[in-house]
């Protein structure tokens, strides 16, 4: 039960940071999400994101910052097993499920619905 509470608080706080970037710093939505990805990647590279995931679970894995973390994690993992070329091949190894799902479900959605704008 405690895990749920922390997931809610940590996930919510990441969203608060995003909202402050939109409203306070007047960043565009695209700048906001990509900044969060880059911050997640840096924290992942320094090994600081994984403890957050252990602590808050989905609160840390669902926000977009985890996308940056997962990209770096995949690159580092492949680097260890297959050397420098692994940095290139490993980038999407962990995130491939998310990326492929976005493409496939996007495609399926476009078959059924008409865009509204």
């Amino acid at each position, binding site marked *: 039960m405690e895990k749920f509470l922390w997931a809610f608080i940590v996930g919510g706080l990441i969203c608060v940071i995003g909202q402050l970037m939109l409203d306070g710093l007047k960043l565009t939505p695209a700048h906001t999400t990509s900044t969060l990805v880059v911050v997640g990647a840096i924290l992942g590279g320094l090994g600081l994101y994984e403890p957050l995931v252990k602590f808050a679970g989905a609160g840390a894995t669902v926000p977009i910052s985890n996308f940056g973390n997962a990209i770096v994690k995949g690159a580092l993992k492949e680097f260890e097993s297959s050397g420098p070329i692994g940095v290139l091949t490993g980038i999407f190894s962990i995130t491939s499920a998310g990326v492929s799902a976005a493409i496939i479900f996007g495609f399926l959605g476009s078959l059924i619905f008409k*865009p*509204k*704008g």
Partner: protein
Amino acid sequence: MLKGHQTWVFESKPTIIASAAVGGPYEAKGNLASDFDLLHGDIRLGQDSFEKAEQKLQEQACETAIKKAKMKKEDVQFLFSGDLINQIVPSSFSARTLSVPYLGLYGACSTSMEGLSLASLLVDSQFAKNALVCASSHNAASEKQYRYPTEYGSQKPPTAQWTVTGAGAALVAAQGEGPRVTASTIGRVIDMGLTDPFNMGAAMAPAAVDTIEAHFRDLDRDPSYYDLIATGDLGRVGHRIAGDLLIKHGFNIPKEIFTDCGVLIYKQDQPVVLAGGSGCGCCAVTTFGHFLNRMRKGELRKILVIATGALLSPMSYQQKESIPCIAHAVSIEI
């Protein structure tokens, strides 16, 4: 005849012999639904693109106005029209359908009054017996061009406005029955350095104030001359700013006669519109539909409509330019 610095007084008082307004689904749910000649439940109007739908809106508004005047499209001598889409294609393409001698206009959301001024000038100077004016906007087409695709789901601040899906048309003629255009004040481009496209009302308010002041100065008139003074699409945020600025400049327009098309068109409980309506269609449908209907019913006798336009492009916004704005005022009396 030029009066003062920037006001045309039309001595012959060209008559708006017919007008029409066509709208979309959100306009149908708004305050002015009964003033539309035609309302569409589908934002696509059965077309395969939003731009084609906007073209259709213009064609229907023009055809309805011509039909109401008991004329044929061959009888229309000139067409002035404009919209917000790149290279004003909805206007040019609907002019192709109407095949009337055509002058395309771009004045952003001030297009309706820019067109009405020019059509009245043409008729007053006897260069034409009649001229048709049309202005339109389409919510989805504008969102696509100016902002993010709606599927992206990006948030908008509460100061943002909702582009009206609609077209308004008015047929101005030398002879006939109806409300008459008596004067036009052509606005200057005013830029107060604002850069937020999600707060266009605030950017446009100073332009509206500049033109209102010029109008009363040039004609030596008092705001009490009019039964209604309406700005084009300042919305709830911009309209309040314009009211405050006018008071600061010593113009006390009574609250009950000072209004805004962007505030009037939608209901308070339509949260999707945020601060109110905007777009060329906003002032066009409200003026050519609602206001002219009220004049014909005898509820209003003298009105001043100040259509406000933000002269930005997606490119100028991306290059971090500020938003220059304009406003044109037209005085209509019956």
